[in-house]
């Protein structure tokens, strides 16, 4: 039940204003990084690669690259959003305000997801400058984009609450999410892997997310699209349960 829409809007606007203040860091840096990926993997290496599932290699990696940015930026934006007030002490105002736990999550996660989705679309537009892209299932593409941004923003929110220092804030994105993304088929199809690596890779949840997103572009994926949707929803529900527990117990938010 939404009882304080003004409160949600205040936090959301505050978070979006922070992104605009750090526009270079929020948008321009990821775009430059993605462009460099295209130069390296698309032009330099990609020219020597065969087509994968009938898709030119440069175009094949676009969904994976968008997902890579979506994962890391959603986590970064949401974790920093809730961690920074904890760090500066301004969290007192959020905790003493008439906003519910759900409203706090909607505001922080909504803002983080908005930024990530905008970033994803900018990367898509940037990619279109380098390679020919087609989107066979635009609605499903939008659904995966939104679901992934929201889910990883929820995950980022949990990390932001959990973190007790800036190094902890970086720990999970750098040491877990990025490696899983690289190993999850961002730059290749897992069908290219020999056994047993191919089977082992199926235990990487990121495979399902990238595969589903790539399916929405080119109609082919490493796993069935239903499995991709189930994996995304499963991760989202896990994050929601964890956040509900955080607010119920006050874990690292409220003594």
């Amino acid at each position, binding site marked *: 039940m939404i009882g304080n829409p003004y409160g949600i809007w205040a936090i959301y606007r505050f978070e979006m204003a922070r992104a605009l203040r750090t526009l270079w860091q929020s948008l321009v840096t990821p775009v430059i990084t993605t462009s460099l990926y295209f130069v390296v993997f698309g032009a330099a290496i990609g020219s020597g690669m065969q087509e994968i599932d009938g898709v030119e290699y440069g175009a094949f990696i676009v969904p994976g690259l968008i997902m890579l940015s979506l994962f890391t930026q959603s986590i970064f934006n949401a974790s920093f959003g809730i961690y920074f007030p904890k760090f*500066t002490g301004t969290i007192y105002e959020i905790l003493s305000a*008439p906003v519910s736990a759900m409203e706090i999550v909607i505001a922080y996660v909504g803002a983080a997801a908005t930024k990530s989705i905008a970033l994803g679309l900018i990367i898509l537009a940037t990619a279109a400058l380098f390679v020919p892209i087609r989107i066979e299932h635009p609605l499903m593409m939008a659904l995966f984009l939104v679901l992934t941004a929201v889910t990883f923003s929820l995950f980022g929110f949990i990390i932001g609450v959990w973190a007790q220092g800036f190094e902890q804030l970086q720990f999970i994105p750098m040491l877990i999410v990025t490696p899983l993304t690289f190993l999850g088929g961002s730059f290749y199809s897992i069908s290219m892997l020999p056994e047993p690596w191919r089977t082992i890779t199926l235990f990487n949840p990121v495979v399902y997310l990238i595969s589903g997103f790539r399916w929405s572009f080119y109609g082919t994926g490493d796993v069935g699209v239903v499995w991709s949707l189930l994996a995304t929803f499963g991760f989202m529900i896990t994050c929601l349960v964890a956040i509900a527990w955080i607010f119920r117990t006050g874990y690292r938010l409220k003594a």
Partner: protein
Amino acid sequence: MTSVIVAEGLGKTYASGLEALKPTDLTINKGEIFALLGPNGAGKTTFISLVCGIVSPTAGKVSVEGFDIVADYRQARNRIGLVPQELTTDAFETVWATTRFSRGLFGKAKDDAYLEQLLKDLSLWDKKTTKIMHLSGGMKRRVLIAKALSHEPDILFLDEPTAGVDVELRRDMWAMVRKLRERGVTIILTTHYIEEAEEMADRVGVIAKGRLILVEDKTTLMKKLGRKTLTLNLQEPLSAVPADLSDYDLTLKAEGQELEYSFDANREETGVPDLLRRLSDAGIGFKDLNTRQSSLEDIFVGLVHEERAA
């Protein structure tokens, strides 16, 4: 008298086992200025944090204008503004943006005219586009007050509002607090400056080691626990208090030039005329005399000292 905050057995014990606030009963009345006094770590901020929802109680309950702070947290928190002890602000935000943020956060629709007047009242209007990081400590304190008042609360908590601010700003704040009280706002303040409580408070609570030792009307407290001191400037210095005056609470000061007599001002027989007569009989003359009422600070120090000794 209408009560606005009612704490019943309110207590907080942290997971570490630290009992920051022992079960406390306290009622704050509408429109009063209530000063909560206590040394560092006494439990003042814990009490405020519990009422404001920043910390979860482990015992008892609190209601704000009849609304339970847990079950009816929205209604309870809507009515409260909090100025925290630490200067915790969003350094990169402007004064205007952060004040608008606070109003929205507390569920109030945009009202730029109200916020403009608020910033003008706090002498912040000419700084409205300044980033908080560029403000002085005193100005940051004013910003925190503006944020706390941005949603027009009925109750204002001021946690050490004048810590580290200059005399002029302190006077301004006292004037502002009085103005708020005239508008019907209930004010609960914690302070280390006992003179502040003495100057402004209607009632005083003293807290030490997590226990609320007493709650009393300030004037009554000063009457009840206040003592007076008679100081006599002697014509000739004494090396010791004469033995035949040992039944009086006498102390020699200023290398024997001053004789101090401490007495209960509320007693019918203060003993002053008798002491003066006996001094005259003993041939001890004095050039001048004066009396002084003990301050709230003297009372506070005495109470805390007793609690620590207990």
